[in-house]
């Protein structure tokens, strides 16, 4: 097992306007499960492929297990990769798929047999060993791809969106299997996905990427509770965080936010961090909001009209269109919540649940 260190990695493609990967640095600890998360085109797969050696590194250093591997060929980096399409050799049986790489490395037959047997038992492939890939289901193929990685006994496992081709139910089951596998093997794993649910449930730490750059790294819940910018805030969480534009004003020595619908939200927590700023972006998670009747008085009450009600069974999502073209907010309410289409309501936002972001850069403004 080994530590993977990315130091200022860049990837430039000829003729592209901006680098596909820009100054990406992080360290995956020995035995850690790190998830690279981001929308398509954010550079996460490119970063993974640079770690694998399938893409060349334009600038920066890559260190695996203490040695710099920029110029080392992929096959010599002691890594194993599970591809999105599984990439099984279609003309070989499962057993041959598993043992092919080991044979090419001239490992002796006894060792090969032992490793194949062990991987097959961990993944439940025992009966499938003589089948060819076309006779396997999607989930089975995925396990063979995993098996192929396991028998290599590599220092680092790399996963490139391995669950995207599975149907929803299988995805959940396989997710848990992978977590258990990680627990069992204690291996260093780098996992790429665009699905934030996978990231949140599987990663010990997640690295959110956007536009080729790292937006934030941290433990899943930490990133969820303290997003570094608007992008990360909206990427995690479903439904996404509500973002509203607001003007700042001072009243009685305290900062207040004024939203387009006329609501006033006190910003006591931020004290003097907001000096000199005129506008700000407010963030609030749907689960922190509550719907009140329009007659309720007091601060921190957004006003608007119910635009949609989505009873999901376990909970109800209510979509409120705010007055004055201020925007829309979605609230996640208890399943028996009472809201009707077209109804006038107030939305209460507790100050503790507010996030502030710079209006221009989108970066989070932290409360002291």
């Amino acid at each position, binding site marked *: 097992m080994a530590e993977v260190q990315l130091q200022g990695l860049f990837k430039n493609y000829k003729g592209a306007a901006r680098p596909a990967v820009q100054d990406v640095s992080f360290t995956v600890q020995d035995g850690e499960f790190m998830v690279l998360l981001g929308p398509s085109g954010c550079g996460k797969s490119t970063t993974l492929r640079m770690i694998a050696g399938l893409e060349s590194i334009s600038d920066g250093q890559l260190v695996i297990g*203490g*040695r710099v591997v920029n*110029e*080392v*060929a992929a096959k010599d980096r002691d890594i194993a990769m599970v591809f999105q399409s599984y990439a099984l050799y279609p003309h070989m049986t499962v057993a041959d798929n598993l043992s092919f790489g080991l044979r090419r490395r001239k490992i002796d037959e006894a060792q090969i047999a032992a490793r194949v047997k062990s991987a097959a038992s961990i993944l439940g492939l025992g009966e499938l060993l003589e089948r060819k890939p076309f006779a396997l289901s999607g989930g089975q193929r995925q396990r063979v791809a995993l098996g192929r990685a396991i028998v290599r006994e590599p220092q680092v496992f790399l996963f490139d969106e391995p669950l995207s081709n599975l149907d929803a139910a299988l995805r959940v089951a396989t997710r848990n299997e992978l977590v258990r596998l990680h627990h069992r093997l204690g291996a260093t794993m780098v996992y790429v996905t665009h699905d934030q649910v996978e990231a949140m449930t599987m990663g010990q730490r997640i690295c959110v990427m956007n536009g080729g750059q790292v937006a934030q790294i941290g433990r899943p819940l930490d990133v969820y509770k303290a997003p570094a910018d608007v992008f990360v805030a909206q990427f995690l969480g479903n439904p996404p965080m509500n973002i509203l534009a607001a003007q700042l004003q001072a009243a009685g020595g305290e900062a207040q936010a004024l939203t387009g619908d006329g609501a006033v939200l006190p910003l006591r927590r931020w004290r003097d961090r907001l000096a000199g700023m005129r506008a700000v972006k407010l963030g609030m998670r749907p689960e922190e909001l509550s719907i009140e009747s329009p007659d309720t008085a007091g601060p921190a009450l957004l006003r608007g009209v119910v635009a949609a009600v989505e009873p999901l069974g376990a909970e109800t999502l209510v979509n409120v269109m705010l007055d004055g073209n201020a925007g829309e907010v979605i609230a996640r309410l208890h399943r028996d919540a009472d809201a009707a289409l077209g109804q006038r309501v107030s939305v209460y936002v507790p100050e503790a649940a507010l996030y502030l972001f710079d209006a221009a850069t989108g970066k989070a403004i932290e409360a002291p």
Partner: protein
Amino acid sequence: MNALPSAINPASVGLTTRRATELLTGWLRQGGLMAVVVLYTLFAALPFGWIATMSVRTTSEISARHFAWPEQWHWEKFRIAWVDSNFAQYFWNSALVVVSAVAIVTLLGAAAAHCLARYNFRGNRLVYFILFSSIVFPPQIILISLFQVLVEYDLYNSRLGLTLVYVSLQLPMTVYLLESFFARIPQDLFDAAKIDGYSDFEIFWRIVLPVGMPAIATTIILNFIQLWNEFLFAVVLLSDQDKRTLPIGIRAYMGDYFQDIGMIATGMMIAVIPVVILYAFFSEKLIQGMTAGAVK
């Protein structure tokens, strides 16, 4: 482990020599590849180049030195071949027969292909199979009886007869190529047209033909080239000298003027020019059309 500077660190020295050998084998491989490429290009192109140069040299020049670059470019040989040696007539015959045959087979083939691709009726697959399977028939199975048939109907030694035979020769392949393309046209297009009140024939004329134009163009080009070069049936079914098509003409030329290499070369160039022109404009379509269905 980090005590030694990297220049004499054994691990990284090993790395550098390995990288050097990788580079070297890489260059050797590139060199080997280039050698293969150059050799084969010569192999493929030289014969053609040779003929081309011979076509502008006189036979006496050629007999003297068979492989020289033309000193004098005898372009008038083309004129001579065209006019004096009847190549104009042969060219005209080929053009007449081939263009007519291609036009007819395209129309007939498209109509049949559309019907097979679009309409469900009992026997649809049977008809398709019957038409399609004849692609593998060796030509001899119909050669002799076609000869008889044409003679009996007074179409022997006529360009009309040959045209009809050419249509029948290319029909299976045309139907095959067009049917697979037409089948991919979305059904919605036809449903909408039906609702708009178009009749079946109008649909064929106004929708299938325009939409299917890429595939139709491909079959036109393919049929043209195959029929332009066709030899066996032309040799059997035509006997008059002035009805000969170009391939027969060239061969007869070779028979009559066996030693007149220069003129034969010129004749060959004349035969090849239409194909080369088509190829220059439509190489991609041609290649795709001819190799369709071969990749599995």
